[in-house]
């Protein structure tokens, strides 16, 4: 390790990196996952750091093209952090080790917050507008995700500015944040089940010649509305979680069941 070199990356370089890291999955494949796109995103910065040092550049490119699978929106945090180390001419082993240690946890936080909290909320709200024919639905959705796209820049800057200090804060707060995010997400999914899964029993029971009981409106709606959607969703949850059934299989089963129950005149 040598003493810190003068910084060669400008603020603009980091901003460009924030945008450019959208290429993370450009050559996604099962063998190396995001590795190609990961290196590709950082190439201009690496080129600047290793100017005439062809060997240094090729070593950095080779290291970075090893397996990685992290979160596409938050990736800038890790890229910024590791580039600040590259810039300081830190030991290759350290950079590589940190990358391997951190990409998984970062993916976990990102998936918890973005796929399992933000998406159900934004999708639920914008879909409720859209299903009334209101164009506000897709507009809300687009604006939220545009903001998230722009947030890639400050996320990348944060990683770069914090450098190795980032590791501490990442570990410290990630648990509390992802727990709160999960609570919010789970609450919204509860609401989504009640609003968007619909099961309407059309079968009726004839008690006597002129006395017909509708199973849906006279029975389920009076005892507990939405109990069937809740039950069916929890059934899917059980099969996915405990029986490890493939979601595609469940979609096909759902179709088969729906057509069968329609044929029998029950739903």
């Amino acid at each position: 390790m040598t003493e810190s070199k003068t910084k060669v990356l400008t603020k603009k370089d980091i901003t460009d990196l924030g945008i450019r890291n959208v290429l993370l999955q450009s050559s996604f494949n099962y063998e190396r996952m995001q590795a190609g796109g990961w290196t590709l995103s950082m190439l201009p910065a690496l080129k600047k750091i290793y100017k005439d040092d062809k060997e240094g550049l090729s070593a950095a490119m080779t290291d970075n093209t090893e397996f990685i699978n992290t979160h596409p929106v938050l990736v800038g945090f890790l890229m910024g952090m590791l580039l600040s180390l590259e810039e300081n001419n830190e030991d290759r082993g350290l950079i590589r080790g940190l990358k391997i240690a951190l990409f998984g946890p970062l993916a976990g936080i990102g998936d918890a917050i973005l796929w399992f909290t933000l998406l159900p909320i934004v999708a639920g709200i914008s879909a409720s507008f859209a299903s009334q024919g209101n164009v506000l639905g897709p507009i809300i959705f687009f604006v939220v995700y545009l903001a998230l796209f722009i947030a890639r820049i400050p996320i990348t800057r944060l990683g770069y500015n914090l450098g190795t200090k980032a590791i501490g804060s990442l570990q410290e707060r990630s648990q509390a944040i992802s727990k709160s995010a999960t609570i919010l997400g789970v609450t919204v999914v509860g609401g989504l089940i009640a609003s968007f899964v619909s099961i309407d029993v059309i079968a009726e029971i004839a008690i006597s010649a002129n006395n017909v009981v509708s199973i849906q409106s006279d029975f389920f709606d009076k005892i507990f509305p939405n109990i069937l959607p809740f039950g069916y969703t929890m059934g899917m949850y059980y099969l996915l979680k405990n029986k490890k059934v493939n979601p595609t299989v469940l979609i096909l089963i759902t179709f088969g069941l729906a057509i069968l129950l329609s044929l029998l005149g029950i739903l």
Partner: protein
Amino acid sequence: MDISLGQGILLSLMAVIVGIDFWLEGLFIFRPIIVSTLTGLILGDLKLGLLAGGLTELAFAGLTPAGGTQPPNPVLAGIMTTVIAYTTKTAPETSIGLALPFSFLMQYILLFYYSTFSLFMVKSDKYAAEGDTKAFTRINLIPMFIVAITYGIVVFLSTYVAQDAMRALVNSMPEWLTHGFEVAGGLLPAVGFGMLLKVMLKKQYIPYLLIGFLFASFIQYSNLLPVALIGTAIALIDYFNSKSSPAVQKGGDDYSDGI
């Protein structure tokens, strides 16, 4: 209603753009709520696009590519739900079911690409070792362009070329079958929500699921914002509590199971 050649081409171009977005997970314009709306705009029936978009978005809410699994394709679902409703005059609730085979088709094409694109890594390694940035950039952008072109072709064939066959198929379906598709449309979001819960739900979170469910069941409101606000309040209470007593935080979360 017919899809004109111009509309077919526009739909393919849109698919190329949102297809790249799905590959990269950039702007999230690949979600059905956006894709269906744009499809509706191209077909000149915005309202239909919005209805189909709202419906398909929810059905696909839990089918996410989180953790590198490839879900049934949301782009094709968004396009075909709208297109089939438009050409065959079926309700979006029915056409969402008819759109699924297209969604599966694209899912399998992408799965095939995930495996075969591994071959590009051989050249990538070579160029990395040589420090050849230009060649490295080229070889890692090619897969993205292959994906983009595939979307364009698949969507052009599915929307413009196959529309007569599609219409014939729908017209030949008996009433119980179309109604069955409609029923399936109402049930389908349950699979998606089940997927979400598979990752998120643990014993200690069941009360929150019930709060959200009961709130939306008994207090009818036109959208889910109130539920989201209640959830935010509860989440904040928990966050501040765990901050003041760090010991509680220990047993927190691990996503080892789902992701």
